[in-house]
């Protein structure tokens, strides 16, 4: 491709007379021409505001006109897609104003953090131009806008400093009138990673209406805010997120499926759904033990559902598992009544009272309690066994499950063997110990007919 005119030669620029936006689009066009980028390797992503009128001026570039503040976020998505596309050379250029930078600040911060290969042209004219000249987060102190008629009293953000702390690789601040602006924009576009050029300009429609903007005023305003003019490049270049991801993509092996207990010839002896609740304390393997029960049930042809509950803090307080085992597909996953309640800690039991589970127990409900608990269940057939003492608190839930199953034929012992065989070697001994304790207790004291 030769040297395309990026900005349509006959383009009638839609900006107010003297508006800095007109200077920026010309400088951008010159920068692109200097870089000789094929037009379809650039996407102009424009924000809401007068800055968003640029799309139609660049008839050869891809253009995406977005919602307010989201131009950066859409550009991030487009750039990231490049990590997994064969044609990864697309360069998003974001055109955003100070209003868009304010509402979309998080996107700018994340773009810098990720180091995505996009270039942001931040048109800072200190106010919302398209909507009537309202104050923005970048309005200088004492500046008069339609919403700060007595002068702005809120100090403006310094976006460059802010993005520097977010690890941005290439930052620059220029005036729209700078003759070197095209070179700075070109360098920003050529920079491999996140780059942002803040362009200070005047909104002739509203800014100049209420504030003195002639002569060197813009420079004085910038100086009063402590704005550095020029480039702020990071000492070290970082790899872009896309490149890091591509490396990851090549090095990550396909995940192996977790081994499952094989389906056995022996089947469970269960005619109707069975609802079991296991209640204990967080960190004592209540939920993982319940999952083992479901695996064992699966190996002997049962359907199961498992729901877990714990306080929002997760690592403390109660831990519950609600299980349904059924010879058929399970439709309703809740319990209208509970068949087996296993309580291995006081905290767990308290929660069963609080959440209404105990109200669903009937005289037929089997209640298996740890012998240490001084609890009187409201109803049911109660059995107390020293699960915590004999098996340790961390194995108490599994020992109690094994105890219960040891008393009846629901899930035969062969199913446990299959489950243990499917576990990682370093977990097997622990699980076997818990199962042995439960089965031994059952053979000594269980008097429950299924």
């Amino acid at each position, binding site marked *: 491709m030769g040297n395309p005119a990026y900005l349509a030669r006959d383009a009638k620029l839609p900006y107010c007379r003297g508006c800095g936006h007109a200077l920026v689009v010309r400088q951008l066009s010159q920068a692109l021409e200097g870089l000789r980028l094929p*037009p*379809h*390797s650039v*996407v102009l992503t424009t924000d809401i505001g007068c800055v968003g009128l640029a*799309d*139609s001026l660049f*008839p*050869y*570039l*891809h*253009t*995406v*006109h*977005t*919602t307010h503040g*989201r131009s950066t*976020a*859409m*550009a*991030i*998505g*487009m*750039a*990231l*897609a*490049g990590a*997994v*596309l064969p*044609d990864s050379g*697309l360069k998003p250029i974001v055109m955003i104003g100070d209003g868009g930078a304010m509402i979309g600040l*998080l*996107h700018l*911060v*994340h773009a810098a953090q*990720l180091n995505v290969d996009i270039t942001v042209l931040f048109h800072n004219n200190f106010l919302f131009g398209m909507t009537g000249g309202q104050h923005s987060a970048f309005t200088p102190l004492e500046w008069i806008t339609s919403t700060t008629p007595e002068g702005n009293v809120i100090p403006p953000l310094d976006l460059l400093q802010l993005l520097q702390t977010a690890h941005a690789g290439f930052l620059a601040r220029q005036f729209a009138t700078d003759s070197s602006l095209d070179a700075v924009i070109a360098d920003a576009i050529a920079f491999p990673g996140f780059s942002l050029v803040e362009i200070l300009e005047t909104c002739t429609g509203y800014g100049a209406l209420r504030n003195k903007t002639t002569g060197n005023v813009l420079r004085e305003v910038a100086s009063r805010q402590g704005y550095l003019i020029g480039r702020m490049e990071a000492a070290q270049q970082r790899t872009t*997120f896309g490149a890091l*991801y591509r490396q*990851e*993509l090549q090095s*990550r*092996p*396909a*995940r192996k499926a977790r081994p499952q207990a094989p389906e056995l010839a022996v089947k469970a002896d269960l005619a109707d759904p069975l609802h079991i609740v296991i209640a204990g304390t967080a960190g004592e393997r209540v939920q993982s033990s319940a*999952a083992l029960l*479901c695996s064992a049930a*699966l190996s002997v042809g*049962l*359907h*199961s*559902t*498992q*729901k*877990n*509950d714990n306080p*929002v803090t997760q690592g403390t307080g109660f831990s519950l598992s609600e299980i349904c085992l059924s010879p058929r597909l399970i*439709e*309703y*996953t*809740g319990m*209208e009544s509970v068949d087996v309640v296993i309580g291995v800690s006081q905290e767990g039991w308290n929660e069963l009272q609080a959440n209404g589970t105990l109200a669903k127990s009937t005289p037929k409900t089997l209640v298996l309690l740890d012998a240490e608990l001084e609890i009187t269940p409201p109803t049911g057939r109660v059995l107390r066994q020293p699960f915590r003492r004999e098996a340790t608190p961390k194995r108490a839930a599994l020992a109690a499950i094994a105890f219960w199953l040891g008393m009846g034929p629901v899930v035969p012992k062969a199913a446990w063997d299959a489950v243990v065989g499917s576990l990682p070697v370093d977990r097997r001994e622990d699980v076997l110990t818990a199962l042995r304790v439960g089965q031994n207790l059952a053979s000594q004291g269980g008097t429950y007919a299924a």
Partner: protein
Amino acid sequence: MVAEGALAAGCRFFAGYPITPASEIYEVMMRELVTRGGLALSAPDEISSLCYCVGASLRGLKAMTATSGPGWALMLETVQYALMTETPVVIALVQRLGPSTGGATQGAQGDIFLAEFSTSGGYTIPVFAPSNAAECYELTQQAFNWSERLRCPVVLLTDKEVGMTTEVVEEAALAKVAPVERTGIGAKAPFAAYEIESAESVPGFAPVGGPVKVTITGSAHDRWGRLRKVSPEVVEMLVHLQRKIEAHAAEMAFVRPDLDPEASSLLVSYGITARAAREAVGVLRKEGFPISFLQVQTLFPVPVEALRRAAAGIRTVFVAEENLTGQYRTVLAPFLMGTRLLGINKVGSMISPGEIVRAIRRAGGTIPRGDWPCTHSLDESIHPDRKAGV
């Protein structure tokens, strides 16, 4: 299974933000997508999540995010952008108890209105509502396929009870749906990004970054994507956004009917409550009470034909759903004029089969056909926990 369905459908991009009860989908996609040639990443908020997905989709990747009510609320701006720019994207919305932060670990079916009626202009957003893990797998694939075919955002609506319950699925029985790819533009260049060939047609897609210039905008535009004030062409574009979806409504109307030709009552449900409803229907039929059942999987566009077929000759229609005001019942009401329309509603926990059975018995649904006046009421909502009933 939502994540597995997405992978089976060819999802290549996922951006997520943690929120109970949708975080599992996010975690599985973070783990799996990288091993299947896709990209998954953590976004700094839900607004960013969906924007990243839309950006990736504009480049041609099938994209998805997952969230719950509070996150969905933040995404609405970008849902509308995807609708207006005709960008395919799938949002898995795993409902929890609302309003506001609500109950993060409690299920609910309270986001029906929020999911559907959230665009300026009131456009139809396809919403699929699976009731179990196997349906999650199948309907997520459908969500992707319809999103790609129609070039629009599609919602896969589940809840905590569907999304966070571990259950057995038979791998061999899982429905594999052939993935649909976006229609390209062939050799057309220059091409109009928003061409309208007919009411049911969907414009061909060319990716941003490809060899053909693409013009995208969320503002009112002509077929070339040029920003325009209202003109006959702009109005035609706005109408077509809706027409292209309506034109395919019958094809994407997924339901699971279980009809009894002798029935004078029909029970309608969806999502998690459909499972209790199916059990309740079994109980009622055992009692000798003829009742039809319709599980709606495509909530929107409303599967009107299937509904009319199920409601033919029916006097009383019950809609069971886990929300306070009968959101989907309100949606169905215009299609069920002439029937007595009753809601079975509850919040705070799942509606049980027993509660549905009792509510239907209490409403006098066992009275034979012909004995009820043809009244239509939205007020006769039955809350199972209330003693009074209707």
